[in-house]
């Protein structure tokens, strides 16, 4: 009995230590972001936040179009998540519950491409954007991301478990068309998983870096592109770089801290089935 209790204490102690190491870099970024560059050189380095945060932030806004970048990122990530939620639910419903010729082969194709790296198609995608004259515009970031294989796979898995076939049959007997079923039965049933998918997609889109860097310009950036402009051009201005980082990261981290339970549930569910 006592052995077990000691064991449990050890577990809590270890997990707390790990939690400490997982949060310390974020904490330290706030420390640096709220100091001035001169104080970083002191020994020992500053370990607590100072009072320069807002001054550093205003320099960020003077250096890169950070307000525009925030708006762009909210627009990009928002529209991508809504679209992925909608189209994945439709396709996931068809794959999970409807019978049609070619269903298995189409599903297999979708799952198979989940393992293909994004890099494999990125050059033709760029050529396509040049042809469409979308380089530099947000279309180039939003349109290719409107659907993805993971979303369809995720919703197919969820709906085949969570949507009772009897309910669909009952709806059919009552004279519902398929669209009626989608509207009255599928969408309400899909809501919990779609919400998780939406949050995951929002995070991925918000943090996406390589593709926006390739097709957007520093004048019309997303948050990540603006941050990399800061990191690239002002190498020795640590406090400004980290003030921008804190500003671009903290909203998402705070939202996550509140909704994290659901997102984690979604990741873990997807994993067991995958």
């Amino acid at each position: 009995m006592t052995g077990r209790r000691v064991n449990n204490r050890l577990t809590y102690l270890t997990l707390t230590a790990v939690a400490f190491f997982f949060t310390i870099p974020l904490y330290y970024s706030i420390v640096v972001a709220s100091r001035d560059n001169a104080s970083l050189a002191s020994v020992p380095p500053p370990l607590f936040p100072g009072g320069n945060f807002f001054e550093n932030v205003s320099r960020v806004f003077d250096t890169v179009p950070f307000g525009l970048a925030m708006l762009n990122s909210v627009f990009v990530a928002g529209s991508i998540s809504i679209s992925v939620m909608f189209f994945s639910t439709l396709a996931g419903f068809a794959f999970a519950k409807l019978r049609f010729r070619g269903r298995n082969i189409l599903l297999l194709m979708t799952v198979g491409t989940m393992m293909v790296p994004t890099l494999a198609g990125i050059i033709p995608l760029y050529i396509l954007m040049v042809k469409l004259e979308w380089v530099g515009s947000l279309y180039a970031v939003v349109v290719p991301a409107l659907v993805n294989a993971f979303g369809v796979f995720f919703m197919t898995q969820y709906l085949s478990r969570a949507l009772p076939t009897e309910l669909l049959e009952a709806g059919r007997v009552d004279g519902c068309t398929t669209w009626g079923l989608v509207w009255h039965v599928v969408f309400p049933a899909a809501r919990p998983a779609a919400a998780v998918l939406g949050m995951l997609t929002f995070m991925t889109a918000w943090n996406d870096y390589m593709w926006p860097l390739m097709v957007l310009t520093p004048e019309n950036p997303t948050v990540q592109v603006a941050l990399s402009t800061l990191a690239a051009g002002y190498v020795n201005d640590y406090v400004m770089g980290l003030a921008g980082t804190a500003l671009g990261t903290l909203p998402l981290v705070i939202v996550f801290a509140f909704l994290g339970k659901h997102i984690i549930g979604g990741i873990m569910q997807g994993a067991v089935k995958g």
Partner: protein
Amino acid sequence: MATRAPERAAPPRRPGGKRRLTGRHWRHMVDVKASPYAYVAPFFLLFCAFGLFPIGYTLWVSLHEWTLLDDEHTFVGLENFRVLLADSYFWNATFNTLSIGLLSMLPQLLLALWLAHLLNRPLRAQNFFRITLLLPNVTSVVAVVVIFSQIFGRDFGLINWVITSFGFEGVAWRDGTLSSHVAISTMIMWRWTGYNALILLAAMQAVPRELYEAATIDGASSFTQLRKVTVPMIRPTIAFVVITSTIGSMQIFAEPLLFGAYTLTGGQDRQYQTLSLFFYENYMRLDFGFSSAISWMIFVFILIIAGINYLLTNRMKGSIR
């Protein structure tokens, strides 16, 4: 086909409305037969245009001398691949990618397994620990690199301060091959260990409780249970984690780019240029044929590693049973 079947299927309780019934049933047939395609079509149209088509077209571009500025694209066969395989920078980038991949993946997997094992028991504040595990993953790569570049700084970095306060000499992390690989691997580990731990934890929770009860009665320690019960039971998920981390590590891009303050070569001596960064360097030269060949080689490497991983997992399964 649509006219006969509804007649037979028509419910007899509504006689009289034969024409209406046929029309209704015809519509019903169309609904049942065709509407599934309508639901998958938007996904597939967009997916083919922006997902599948580009992947295939990459191969086509890689067989040409193709730059953005020329309208003429000369077919050169496998010339781009021949030049690529003879390019020492390519093999240097391959070495760096594998080295960083191994340095980050092995400790990461062990740590993730151990963390998942610790979390796989009734604990208070379970959600708090899970959320802190995933916090680094919510942080964007760009932010991670900016933060860690400061922490790994030569003069004012936190880590060098700790090292020097123990009386050792500070490390110029960016300058050496091994030291820069360690720094970059640390960033990757910090961002992904918690995520992988949660995926492994999900699989562990599906392992039947009785197995652990039986092991406890037999006097197996917690560590023995992890080794003898948990790991064999969740092997498919471990394979999944290894494969996805492999795909991820073949595409490491932001870390070397921003750690080197946006230099495309990854250090003066290319000591930490990865394959993705090598790709990006050639893309920036607008040499699309050559960079397409690079992205295909990355794809091939992933297939090879996935194949090896598949064989090893099967082998292990065979030897244990």
